[in-house]
């Protein structure tokens, strides 16, 4: 068995900025990422959607690179850029020909040092974000299902339970003072990690990091907003209307174990037993065998990338001729089977080979073909910000490959319990897609 070893150098600058370099000269391309330890969960109460709106503002101008210049300077260097907001981190990243490395670092440092935006920029991006929400959620069949539908049903702590994309009234209430305050609180070198992956030498990368980021002042550690949930002791259910689609849908989410525990590793493999594509038990039973569902998929979203309460969530779209009770019974039969009988040694062996293969694909992962090493960047960033151990990227696999059948069955019994789950029913308002002309 061939194991992949990633060469990594990491350091922490005097201002607290973590720097991680993973050199690989295969292609003359370098991927640069800056991750800040701030996500949906920590956005100010009553300001739903703010973290994501703020991410947009980071492209609107900084002290020496006014509006449009971040985009223009990366594209015109032959590269691509983007950013994204998730539960516990927000990232900004570029993939460029390696001769543009210093330019990209300069840009990232400039916006870490000083965001320079005005009311017009804020209004513009508020409009853009609303169209983003419309195109991804409000004007799409099953938009936001279940990632926006589940949290308010499953969780009690506002940090985990609110609308992450943002209510439009909250987006409208965002003001420039709030933007700058958010920036000053969270966008600090001591709350971030800078990553360089690909065609860069370790010493060169670290020297450039010192040159461009070294003088950025650190700040008071951001306030800790406790995202912990009260212990769940009853099944929770909620209903959401489906405006466009005609198939009833159900999502079932079970609370996950703490990350980086033995239970967590076992749950991850159990998740693959249940949701691993066409061989996964959910798809096999609900779609292929019983043919109740058109889709039975899902699982743990971004296993390595969360640092607070989360769930393993199954997403089912079922045929209208089956009731949601019948569908849920079929789902429950799959859960019951694995709780009562666990999985076979052969199945576990298959899961481990597939897990290793998938892990390598994640590390190479191109994020739609234009962002080489996106997956490696993401893992290194999370292992740095959450665990202070970027080297975990080379050892984390061991924990998954050591999982036993007994552990799988034990986590099935411990976590796949009705009082630990939440269910969302997304119910079509139309019985049929056919509309009066």
């Amino acid at each position, binding site marked *: 068995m*061939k194991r992949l070893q990633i060469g990594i150098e990491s350091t922490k600058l005097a201002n607290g900025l973590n720097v991680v370099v993973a050199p690989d000269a*295969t*292609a*003359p*391309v370098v991927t640069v990422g800056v991750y800040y330890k701030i996500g949906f969960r920590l956005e100010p109460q009553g300001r739903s959607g703010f973290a994501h709106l703020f991410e947009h503002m980071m492209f609107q101008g900084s002290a*020496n*690179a006014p509006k*449009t210049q971040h*985009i*223009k300077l990366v*594209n*015109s*260097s*032959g590269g691509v*850029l983007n950013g994204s907001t998730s539960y516990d981190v927000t990232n900004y990243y570029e*993939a460029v*020909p*390696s*001769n543009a*490395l*210093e*330019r990209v670092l300069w840009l990232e440092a400039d916006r870490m040092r000083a965001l320079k935006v005005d009311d*017009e920029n804020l209004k513009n991006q508020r*409009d*853009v*974000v*609303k*169209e*983003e929400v*419309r*195109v991804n959620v*409000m*004007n799409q069949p099953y938009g936001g299902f279940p990632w926006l539908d589940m949290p308010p049903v499953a969780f009690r702590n506002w940090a985990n339970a609110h609308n992450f994309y943002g209510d439009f009234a909250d987006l409208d209430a965002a003001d420039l003072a709030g933007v700058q305050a958010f920036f000053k609180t969270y966008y600090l070198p001591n709350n971030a990690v800078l990553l360089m992956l690909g065609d860069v030498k370790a010493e060169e990368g670290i020297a450039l990091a010192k040159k461009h980021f070294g003088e950025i002042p650190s700040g008071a550690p951001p306030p800790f907003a406790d995202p912990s949930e009260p212990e769940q002791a009853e099944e929770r259910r909620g209903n959401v209307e489906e*405006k*466009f*689609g*005609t*198939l009833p849908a159900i999502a079932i989410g079970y609370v996950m174990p703490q990350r980086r525990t033995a239970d967590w590793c076992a749950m991850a493999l159990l998740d693959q037993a249940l949701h691993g*594509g066409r*061989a996964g038990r959910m798809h096999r039973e609900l779609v*292929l065998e019983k043919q109740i569902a*058109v889709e039975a998929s899902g699982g743990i979203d971004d296993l390595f990338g969360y640092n607070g309460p989360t769930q393993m969530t199954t997403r089912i*779209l079922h045929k209208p001729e089956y009731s949601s009770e019948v569908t849920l019974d079929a789902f429950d039969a799959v859960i019951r089977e694995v709780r009562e009988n666990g999985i076979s040694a052969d199945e576990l*062996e298959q899961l481990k*080979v*597939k897990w*290793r*293969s998938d892990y390598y*694909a994640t590390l*190479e992962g*191109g994020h739609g*073909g*234009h*962002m*080489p*090493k996106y997956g490696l960047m993401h893992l290194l960033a999370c292992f740095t910000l959450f665990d202070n151990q970027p080297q975990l990227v080379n050892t984390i696999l061991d924990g998954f490959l050591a999982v036993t059948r007994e552990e799988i069955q034990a986590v099935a019994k411990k976590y796949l319990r009705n009082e630990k789950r939440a269910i969302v029913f997304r119910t079509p308002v139309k019985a049929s*897609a*056919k*509309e009066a*002309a």
Partner: protein
Amino acid sequence: MATRAVEIAVGVPALAAERAVTWPKRTKARLSNGLEVILAEAHSIPKFHGELFFGSGNAAAMHRAPGLAEMTATVVRTGTTNRASRQIEEDLRRIGADLSSGAGADTSAISFAGLSEFAEPLLGLVNELAREAAFPEGEFERERRQKLEEVKLERTQPGFLASERLRKVLFGAHPYGQVSPSEAQVAAYKREDLQAVYREFYTPENGLLLLVGDFDAQEMLKTAEKVFGGWAGKKPETNVVAAPANPRGRRVYLVHVSGAVQTQILAGCHAITRKHPDWVKLGLTNSLYGGAFNSRLVMNIREDKGYTYSPRSGVNALRQHGYFSVSAAVRNDVVAASLTEIFYEMDKLRSVPVPDPELADAQNYLSGVFSMGLATQDGLLSQLSTVALNELPDDYLETYRQKVRALTPEDLLVTARKYLDSANMQIVVVGDRPQIESQAALFGEVEVYDAQGKQVD
């Protein structure tokens, strides 16, 4: 058009000297049975990616039924003479592999990726699917019913409704004119139809096997020969189809979706195929217009006006005909304003030469992004397949950047005038009729359709 002065950045570090881009060596062979094989080594991870293409897709099966090549590909993976569906899926998992099968307009393909240590068993399974698919009755029935739900569901997606209408308008009765089957057409699929398509399309003479990854090319070629060598079969006859009429004059096609909170705009016109000598020129023109984040259209209707989140334009190259298109999902009250800007930017490129610095930026963008394909196995595979499927010259990858950099503002002006055919763009808007019809009507005579594709009044 920016409504405020654009400021420039101060103190930007210059670009360092460019590192040479070296594309890996391609090993090419034609097996004695006619199967073309192309391999390239890429050792980033201990895996490999592959694709077995057949040079016939939904267009070539259209005379039998729309979408039939896709349905055939779907059922191919559900059983062979040796393995039942469940066995196939477990065997894939056992060797850490992913596999999918599908068909586009022009090709059918089995795509796969797996650990290098299990290359031979994975190729063995691909070979089995290509030669010994059994089309089990029960699997066919299930996939057909599954497909029925899918074709119902896609009629609730604005993006699908827009592209379905545009393709119909641009290509009419040509096979490219129908992107998806109707419910009735799916209901009428027969197992024998799929088997006929399979026998005809899935042959070594019609095939192209691409493999990229962590292996020794010579060894892998021997393995491919061993696995696929015993297969035989002729290239299918190609049906000659009359060229579609190129629609003249701007017209508007409104697909009514009651209660839509946003309008999907999609406009397009005939353009060129990948093989056409103007391809690189049009690629660069498109990149300036709406093909990049930094493009004029994105800067205008997103970054300046905030009408939309993800405007974009593209050149869609089908094998026999290509088309140019531009899309944006916009706020309902700015449909007319968005279309105005969409055409303004097109006409500006048709009338005013692109300033040199902007041209240089776009040239850098296109040549830089082109090289990203080198960095991942699937990125490289996709570049190699573009070259092979379009029968582009062997040095296409090596010379592309040079070609992009040689273009002048004059070239782009000529190209925009030829292909950004603003006077003959066909405009599709998908949204709530009462809110958008009068806005859309400013741009041409309006035909109204429902979500089922039926023309109304």
